[in-house]
């Protein structure tokens, strides 16, 4: 190890209690930021889960619809108009809406019904672990997620209830298809879903549009907008972005998450700056000695910045372990925390930046050092 790194690391370890306090500060800060940003990513994924799992090249939604859950309605005739547009290969209607699920106790609990064709061109449930998607074509058949067994008062396939007064029977069970609103999704065939929601047959929530091979998606979007001014034709990416914007920023949830992350950065910066500054003050005569024997300022700065870097890397390593434990602990929750490699890399950069930035207070103290002070002592 280079001597300057040896000096930096041993300076840190010289006062172990303070070093531990520094690491705790960094870990607290990084874990806080990690959780906030992990929630942000997890929330972002949950918000678009239906969009991500739909077999659509384009989503056609009511003009200005803010998200998949937007309850604005379209006329069913729009489907025929869409089929007449060049480049469109197929159109599948989707209906959505809230309804009431009767519990064995007699009470009701809200559910979010999603209805579409149960053929591969429809928005069908995924991660089916019991029963089958095809079984949803049967009368009164629904699919629920096993996470919500307790909420819905069922125990698996064959569970019976009423939705909006109509009989329903669990014919398929999914695993991990959860709603960020915590209201359980209930999948059903299009006609069954309409009945559960109370939606007239001439109304549709969204259309899934598949394009012919080689069709220009932008061109088709423009043609749809020209022919149907009251709809928006969005690619899955565009609809996903619109949904995330609405739920994360339109509702203030994203701002709250970012505010929490910012708080973490501030706390971390203050803690690291304070401990580095006091460590530097304790080693002031050593830094003055370095200057007295002719050391360049950059060498002294290197010692301090290396101290910050070592703290950053160790603190980040501990925080990452905690972060992954949190990810594992929330994996089956209604809002799992998501940590991606990109987030991890960004957090490492943030931690290093935070710690190195914190070193400036210590450096500013050393800048004013008079090397002659070592002669008087």
């Amino acid at each position, binding site marked *: 190890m280079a001597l300057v790194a040896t000096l930096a690391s041993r300076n840190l370890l*010289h006062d172990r209690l303070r070093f531990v306090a520094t690491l705790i500060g960094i870990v607290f800060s990084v874990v806080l930021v990690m959780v906030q940003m992990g929630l942000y990513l997890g929330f972002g994924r949950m918000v678009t889960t239906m969009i991500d799992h739909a077999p659509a090249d384009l989503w056609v939604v009511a003009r200005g619809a803010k998200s998949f859950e937007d309850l604005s309605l379209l006329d069913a005739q729009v489907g025929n108009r869409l089929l007449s547009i060049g480049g469109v290969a197929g159109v599948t209607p989707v209906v959505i809406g809230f309804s009431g699920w009767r519990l064995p106790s007699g009470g009701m609990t809200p559910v979010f019904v999603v209805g579409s064709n149960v053929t591969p061109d429809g928005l069908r449930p995924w991660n089916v672990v019991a029963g089958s998607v095809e079984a949803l074509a049967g009368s009164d058949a629904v699919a629920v997620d096993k996470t919500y067994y307790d909420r819905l008062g069922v125990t698996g396939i064959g569970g019976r209830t009423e939705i909006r007064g109509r009989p329903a029977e669990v014919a398929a069970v999914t695993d991990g298809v959860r709603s960020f609103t915590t209201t359980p999704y209930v999948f059903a065939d299009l006609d069954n879903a309409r009945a559960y929601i109370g939606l007239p047959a001439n109304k549709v929530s969204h259309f899934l549009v598949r394009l012919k091979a080689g069709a220009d998606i932008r061109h088709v979007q423009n043609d749809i907008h020209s022919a149907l001014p009251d709809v928006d034709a969005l690619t899955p990416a565009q609809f996903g972005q619109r949904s995330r914007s609405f739920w994360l920023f339109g509702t203030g949830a994203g701002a709250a998450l970012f505010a929490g992350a910012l708080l973490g950065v501030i706390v971390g910066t203050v803690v690291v700056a304070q401990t580095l500054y006091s460590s530097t003050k304790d080693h002031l005569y050593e830094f003055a*000695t370095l200057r007295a024997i*002719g050391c360049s300022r950059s060498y002294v700065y290197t010692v301090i910045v290396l101290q910050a870097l070592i703290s950053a890397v160790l603190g980040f390593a501990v925080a990452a372990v905690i972060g992954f434990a949190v990810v594992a602990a929330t994996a089956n929750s209604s809002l799992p925390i998501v940590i991606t490699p990109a987030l991890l890399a960004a957090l490492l950069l943030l931690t290093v930046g935070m710690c190195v930035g914190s070193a400036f207070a210590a450096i500013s103290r050393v800048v004013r050092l008079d090397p002659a002070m070592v*002669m008087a002592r």
Partner: protein
Amino acid sequence: MTHPIIAANNVSKTLGNGATQVQALKHVDLSLNGGGLTMLMGPSGSGKTTLLSVLGGMLTPSEGTVLIGGASTEGASPDRLAEIRRSHIGFVFQTFHLFPTLTAAENVQLALDIRGERGAAARFKARQALTRVDLVHRAAAFPRELSGGEQQRVAIARAIVAEPAAILADEPTAALDSVNGQAIMTILSAIAQEPDRAVLVVTHDARLAALADRLLRIEDGRLLPETAPASNVYRIRGSA
């Protein structure tokens, strides 16, 4: 004619300001050449340490000029002064100023590291320097594991390892008992015999004067006329 390693011409130094202002040095002229141990003696507050600091480029004179290895300290920035010190001077301090977290060998090696000398060659030089002060067997010891005399020997090894032209020692025996003090002075005296190296030792211990090849005395910031035989080229000017 060779240039002096350090030359001070008509140097005055004022410390503090306002009511606390003190003229620590008054019109000092001094040249230090290689070969021989120069000792600077004087009572407390006479300006010994201030003169050493000015000659070592840690302080710049208020008046006059100081040339270190031919480089003037006049108007030099702190970074330039550090560069001059790094190039020409090794320091030995009264309280050693070793780095407590580094071993003896690493403390010595540090003086090379700041000059960009690293790796096996630097480690070899550091051990050589410790050998010269008879302390290589304690190379792996940390300062807290060494006696005061041993710590000062490490400090001397640190001062000489980069082969600077001048060694400036500020009261190097003040924190030591007489036996260790004598041993340190013997080492410094031996180093001073190298023809291209100037060694200046500041001390208030009159018993050490016998080791000096050249004896300078300072009182109230002025150098007094030399009283001991000298082998070096020097001048004294401007004293009261």
